[in-house]
C-alpha cells in the first residue's frame, strides 16, 4: 500500500512539473523572443532603478561595521531585494486566483488539488531561479560572493521558500472563496514595494520605524538574503530563527485551512 502511495506521489510530482512546464511554454510560445522574456524584465527593471535611485538619487549601501568608508553601490543590494519582491508578487498574485483560473483542472481532472498549487510554485520557481542566477552572476562579477555568504544564502533561501509556499497555499485556499483577497493583495504589494527597504538601505529608516520593519515579512526576507549575498555575512540569527518558526506556523495554518476546504473548492470556483 505504501508503495502505491509513494508511486502516486511521484507521479503527481512529475505531473506538477509537467503542468508548470506547459504553463511556461504556453506563455512564451507566441512571442518571438521566447525564453528571453524570463531574463528581460528583471534586467530592465534593474537598469531603470539603478539609473533613477542609484545615479540620480545617489542611494548606496555601505558595508556594516566598516565605518562609512566602503560602499557596495546600488545595483547588487537593490537587485537582491527586487528579485525577492518580483518572486513574492508573482506567487501571491497567481495564488489568489489559482483555482479559479485553473477551473478545468479543478472540476474535470483526476489529480489532487495540491498538484495545481505545486505546479504554480514550480513555475514561479523557474522565474525565481533565473533571477537568482542573475543575482549570483552580478555578485560574482562584483566579487562580493563568499563561501560563508553562499552557505547562509542557501539557509535563508530555504526559509523563504517555506514562507512563500505556505503563503501561496493559504492564499490559494482562501482566494477561491473570497474575491477581495486578490484585489487587496495587489494593492498591498504595491505598498510593500516602498514600505520595504528594497530601493533604500534599512539604515536610512529612522530608528523608531526600523524595529517595525521586522513585522514586514518581505523586509525580513530581503534582509535575510541581502546580508549573505552582498556582505558575505551571517544574517541576524534571532531574525532567522523567528522567521523560520513563523514560516512553520504559517505552513501549519495553511495546511489546516487547505485540508478543510479542499473538498468544497470545486463547488465554488
Amino acid at each position, binding site marked *: 500500500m505504501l508503495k502505491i502511495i509513494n508511486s502516486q506521489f511521484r*507521479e503527481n510530482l*512529475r*505531473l506538477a512539473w*509537467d*503542468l508548470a512546464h*506547459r504553463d511556461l511554454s*504556453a506563455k512564451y*510560445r*507566441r512571442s518571438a523572443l521566447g525564453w528571453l522574456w524570463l531574463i528581460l524584465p528583471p534586467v530592465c527593471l534593474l537598469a531603470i532603478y539603478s539609473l533613477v535611485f542609484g545615479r540620480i538619487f545617489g542611494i548606496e549601501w555601505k558595508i556594516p561595521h566598516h565605518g562609512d568608508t566602503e560602499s557596495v553601490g546600488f545595483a547588487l543590494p537593490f537587485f537582491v531585494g527586487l528579485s525577492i519582491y518580483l518572486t513574492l508578487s508573482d506567487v501571491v498574485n497567481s495564488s489568489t486566483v489559482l483555482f479559479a483560473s485553473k477551473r*478545468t*483542472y479543478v*472540476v*474535470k*481532472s*483526476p*489529480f489532487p488539488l495540491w498538484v495545481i498549487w505545486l505546479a504554480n510554485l514550480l513555475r514561479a520557481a523557474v522565474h525565481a531561479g533565473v533571477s537568482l542566477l542573475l543575482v549570483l552572476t552580478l555578485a560574482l562579477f562584483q566579487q562580493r560572493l563568499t563561501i560563508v555568504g553562499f552557505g547562509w544564502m542557501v539557509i535563508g533561501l530555504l526559509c523563504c521558500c517555506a514562507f512563500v509556499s505556505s503563503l501561496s497555499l493559504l492564499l490559494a485556499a*482562501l482566494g*477561491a*472563496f*473570497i*474575491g477581495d483577497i486578490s484585489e487587496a493583495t495587489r494593492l498591498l504589494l504595491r505598498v510593500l514595494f516602498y514600505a520595504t527597504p528594497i530601493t533604500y538601505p534599512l539604515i536610512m529608516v529612522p530608528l523608531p520605524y526600523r524595529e517595525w520593519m521586522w513585522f514586514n515579512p518581505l523586509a525580513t526576507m530581503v534582509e535575510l538574503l541581502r546580508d549573505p549575498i552582498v556582505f558575505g555575512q551571517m544574517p541576524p540569527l534571532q531574525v532567522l530563527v523567528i522567521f523560520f518558526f513563523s514560516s512553520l506556523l504559517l505552513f501549519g495554518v495553511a495546511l489546516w*485551512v487547505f485540508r*478543510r*476546504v*479542499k*473538498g*468544497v473548492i*470545486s*463547488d*465554488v470556483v
Partner: protein
Amino acid sequence: MSSDLILRATEISKIYSGTTHPLATLRHALFGTASDVTDQYPVLEGINLEIRHGETVGIMGSNGAGKTTLLGILGNVIEQTEGKVERFGRIATLLGLTAGFNPNFSGRENAYLFCSIQGLSRRQTDERIADIEDFADLGRYFELPLRTYSSGMQARLAFASAVHVAADLIIIDETLAVGDANFRMKCYDRIRQMKQDGQTFILVSHNQNMVANYCTRGIVLDGGKKVFDGLTFEAVEVYKRIRTEAMGDSDLKGKVLKLASNKRSLDSAAVMKDFRLTERNIDGETFGVVSALLSVQKDIEHLSVNFGISNQHGIVVCAWDGARSVLKIPKLNSGDERNLEMIFSKRLLPGRYFISCIINELIGDVTKPQSIYQNFLSFEIVGSDVMSGIADLNMSLVMHE
C-alpha cells in the same frame, strides 16, 4: 475483498454548497458551523457501487440526476461529502470533452498533456502517440493548434487519447455523442474490441440504445439516488419509465389515462377536458379513440384540432393537421361545448406511444394556438417481437417450392 474488484463506493453523498454565499461555505468548511449555510444542494445520496474487472457499466439518468457528479467522485475529480471510495487500480477519467486541453498547443502536445494528466509518463506516452494519432485521424491538423479545431475534431482527439491511456477502468461521460457518424462508429468498435480484451468501462449516456448494446450492467440514477442496478435490459426499462413519469404519466399499463401536467394553455379561448382513450372496432380493425370535451370560452369563427402520435423516442408516427383537412369546426360561441373523437388505427408494433394535440383558432390562413396538450396520454402496445420498428406492416415470409 474480492480480487477482481476495481472500485468500491460506500454510501457516498454529495452536497454542493451554493455559490451565492462563498463566505458561509468557507466558514462551514473551516469550523463546521452549519446553521447559516442555507443554499446547499444535495445531488447524491447514499450511493453504493462496486465495479469489477471486465464489466462495462452504463449509468443512465435524466438531466440533473447526478450522473456527472457520481462519475466525478468515482474518478477522484470531485470530493464526496460523505462516504468513501476505494480504488484498486488506475482510473482514467474523461469528464467533459477537452478537460485540460490548451487551445494554443497542437493536437500532439495536447495528447501528451492529456496522458500526463491521466498519469502516464512521457516515455509511456511516446509508445502510444502513434496509435493516438492514427485513431484520431486528424491528418495534418494533428500538428496544428487546437484552436483551429472544430468541436468534433476536439472530441476525436480527446476520445483517441482516452482509449489509449491503458487504465484498469475508463470513465467516459457523454463524449461519444459528438463527432460524425463514421467516427462514432469507430469509437463504438474500439469500445467493443477493448471490452473483448477485458477492459472495464463506465459509460454515461442519455442514449439508451448505446447502453443496451454495449453495457453488461446498467445503473439508473434518479434524483441523486440509485434506483436500479442490474441487467442492462431492465435498467433501460426503468430509465424509460422514469422519463415517461417525468412527462406526467405514472401508469405503465396504458389504457388508463391521465391528464398531463404539461398542458399549456395559451390564449385558452378553447380548452379540452375529460380525455378518455378507448378502443373501437370498425370493419374488423381495431382503432384507438381519444374522446374529449371541447369547451369554448369566447366566440371563435373557425377552429381546428391537430393531433399526433409519437413513440418513446420522440419520433412522430403520424400527425393530423386539422387546418389542412376539410373537417373544420364551424363557428362556436362562448360557452359552447362539443364532444370530439380523435380516431386512429392501431397498426403499431409493441412499444409505448404518446398522444399530443393542439387546438388552433383559424384566422384567414393563420393558425393561432389556443391550447397545447403535449404527450398527455400514453398507451402501450403489446404483442410478439417478431417485427420491430414502429408500423405494423404485416410482414411475413413466404417460401415457394
